[in-house]
C-alpha cells in the first residue's frame, strides 16, 4: 500500500535505465543549438537543455549511470564489508582489532572528502566512482557484519557446526552468514539510495563520469549555469533525482521495518 508508489518508481527507473536506448528518441549527446532550452513539446517531451539536447533521452541514460554506479558500489561494499566484518567477528583476537581499527580509520574521513581525495589521484571515470563509493560504504557493512557476527557467534548452531568438525569457511558460510543476512540486507537497501545521491553529488562537482556522459548530477550542474535562460533543464533532473532517492529510501525503510523493527525510527 504505502510501498506501492515507491516500489513502482524504483521499478520504472530500473526499467528506463535498462531500456534506455529503446526509450530515448534522440541521441542524448546530439547538440542542436537551434532549439536551445526549448519548452516541452511533442517533439521533445521534456524540452531541451542549453545545448539543444533532448532532456528525456539524457535522463534515461543518466538513469543507467546512477543505477549502475549504485548497484555496483553497494555490491562491492556489501561483499568486502561483510567479509571483513565476519572475519573480524568470527576469529577475534588481534585480527579483529586490526581489521576493525582499519574500518574505524576509514570512517574518520568525511565521506566526500575521501572521495575527492581518491579521485584526485585516480582521475574521474565511471569505474573510479564505483570503486570510491564502494570503498566509502565498506565500513558500514563491515561494522554491521561484525556486530551481527558477534551476537551470532555464541549460539548453539554455530557451536554445533564447529563441534561437528566443519571448517571455518563452512561454518561461516552455512551457520553465520544466513543469520546475519537480515541487517545486511537492510543496509543494502538503504545504501542504494545513498549511493545514488553520492554519485550525483560527485558528478555535480565534476568528479563523476566525464562528459559527455549525462549523469543526473552533471545535468543539474551544467544547466544551473543557464538558469536565467530557462529553469526547466535544472528542474527535470532535480525532480528525477529527488524522486528516485526518495523512492529508494522508502523501499529501504520498508525493508528495515519488515526485517528489524528495533531499528525503526533510526535515521
Amino acid at each position, binding site marked *: 500500500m504505502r510501498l506501492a508508489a515507491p516500489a513502482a518508481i524504483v521499478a520504472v527507473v530500473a526499467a528506463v535505465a535498462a531500456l534506455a536506448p529503446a526509450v530515448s528518441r534522440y541521441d542524448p549527446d546530439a547538440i542542436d543549438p537551434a532549439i536551445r532550452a526549448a519548452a516541452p513539446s511533442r517533439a521533445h517531451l521534456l524540452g531541451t537543455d542549453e545545448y539543444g539536447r533532448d532532456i528525456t533521452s539524457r535522463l534515461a541514460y543518466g538513469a543507467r549511470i546512477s543505477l549502475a554506479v549504485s548497484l555496483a558500489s553497494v555490491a562491492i561494499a556489501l561483499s568486502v564489508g561483510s567479509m571483513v566484518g565476519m572475519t573480524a567477528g568470527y576469529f577475534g583476537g588481534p585480527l579483529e582489532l586490526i581489521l576493525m581499527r582499519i574500518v574505524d580509520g576509514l570512517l574518520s574521513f568525511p565521506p566526500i572528502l575521501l572521495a575527492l581525495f581518491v579521485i584526485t589521484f585516480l582521475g574521474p571515470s565511471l569505474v573510479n566512482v564505483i570503486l570510491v563509493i564502494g570503498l566509502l560504504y565498506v565500513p558500514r557493512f563491515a561494522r554491521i557484519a561484525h556486530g551481527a557476527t558477534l551476537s551470532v557467534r555464541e549460539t548453539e548452531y554455530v557451536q554445533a557446526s564447529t563441534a561437528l568438525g566443519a571448517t571455518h569457511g563452512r561454518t561461516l558460510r552455512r551457520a553465520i552468514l544466513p543469520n546475519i543476512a537480515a541487517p545486511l540486507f537492510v543496509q543494502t537497501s538503504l545504501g542504494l539510495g545513498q549511493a545514488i545521491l553520492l554519485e550525483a553529488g560527485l558528478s555535480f562537482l565534476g568528479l563523476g563520469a566525464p562528459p559527455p556522459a549525462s549523469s543526473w548530477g552533471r545535468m543539474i550542474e551544467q544547466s544551473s549555469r543557464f538558469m536565467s535562460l530557462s529553469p526547466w533543464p*535544472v528542474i527535470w533532473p532535480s525532480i528525477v533525482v529527488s524522486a528516485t532517492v*526518495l523512492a529508494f*529510501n522508502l523501499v529501504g525503510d520498508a525493508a528495515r521495518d519488515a526485517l528489524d523493527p528495533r531499528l525503526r525510527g533510526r535515521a
Partner: protein
Amino acid sequence: MKAYLIRRLATALVLLWVVASVVFFSIYVLPGDPAHVILGGMDANPTPEQLRAVREKLGLDRPAVTRYVEWLTHAIRGDFARSLITDRPVAADLLVRLGRTLQLIVPAITIAVAVGVPTGVFAARRRGTVYDPLASAVTLLGFSVPVFVVGPMLVYVFALWLRVLPSGGYVHPMEQPTAYLTYLVMPALALAAGPMATTMRMARSAVLEQLPLDYVRTARSKGLADPSVLGRHVLRNALLPVLTIVGLQVGAMFAGSVIVEAIFNWPGMNAFLLQAIGVRDYPVIQAIVFTASGLFITINFMTDVGYAVLDPRIRYA
C-alpha cells in the same frame, strides 16, 4: 568516567595518526614516481623541469621515513609547508578558509537544531493528528532532496526570480555586515535543509519512544502538567539519540559544504580544496584533508563525550 574518556581520547588520537599517515602515503600508493603522480593525471605529460621542480619543493629525494616524521611533527603544529602553485604558506590560507566554512556550518547546524528539534517534539506530541504525517512528509522530502537540488532552486527563486538575494559570492562580515548576511542566507539554508529533516525525524522518534514508558505515567499521575513532564523528564532521555544524530550531521555537513560552497561561490575550505585538486596543489590537498578529518574526528569524540555526560550508563561501557 575518566577511564572511558581516556580510552576515547586515545582512540581519537590513533585515528588522527592513521589519517595523517594515509594522507602522507597516498602519493606512494600509485605505481610510479611520486612527482609524476602529483603532476600527472590521465592526460598530463609533465616536462622534466616540472618534475624536478616538484621534487625539489616537496623534498621527494629525501628518504620517505624522514619526510614522514617531518610531516607528522609539522602537521600537529599546523605547519603545512607552502603551496606548490602560489608558494604561500598553506596554514595561513587554510585558517582563513576554514573560518569561512565554519561561518556556513555553524549557522546551518544552529538552524537545523533550532527548527528540527522543536518540530520533531511537536510532531511526536501531535501524533495521530494531521500534523504528524505532514511533518513526516516534510522530513522525508528534506531527507531525499539533495543539497545540489536545494541550492540551485533557492538561487532560482530568490536570486533570479524574486531578485532579493545575490546568487553567490562573499564579502567580509566586518566590512559590510548587511551585505554579508544576504550572501550567507541561502548557502546556510541549503546546507541546513537535510540535517534539519534528519534531526526532526530523530527527535520525533526519540520522544515517541519515551512517551509510553512508566516514568512518564508516574510523572503525569503525580499531577505534573504535560509541558513539565516533557521538559523535565522526557527530553533528557530523548535528547540522547538526538545528540548523536546532531554530531553525525555536523560531520555530514563537511560533505554538504563542499557542494554548497561550489554552488554559491563561497570561498571556504572546500572551495579551496576543489581549486587545489584542479591544479594538483598537493601540499594544500594534504593539509585540507588532514585538517577536515581531524575536525571530523574531534567532533565525533566530543559527541561521544557529550553522550557519556548525559547518560551515565555509557561511562561504564
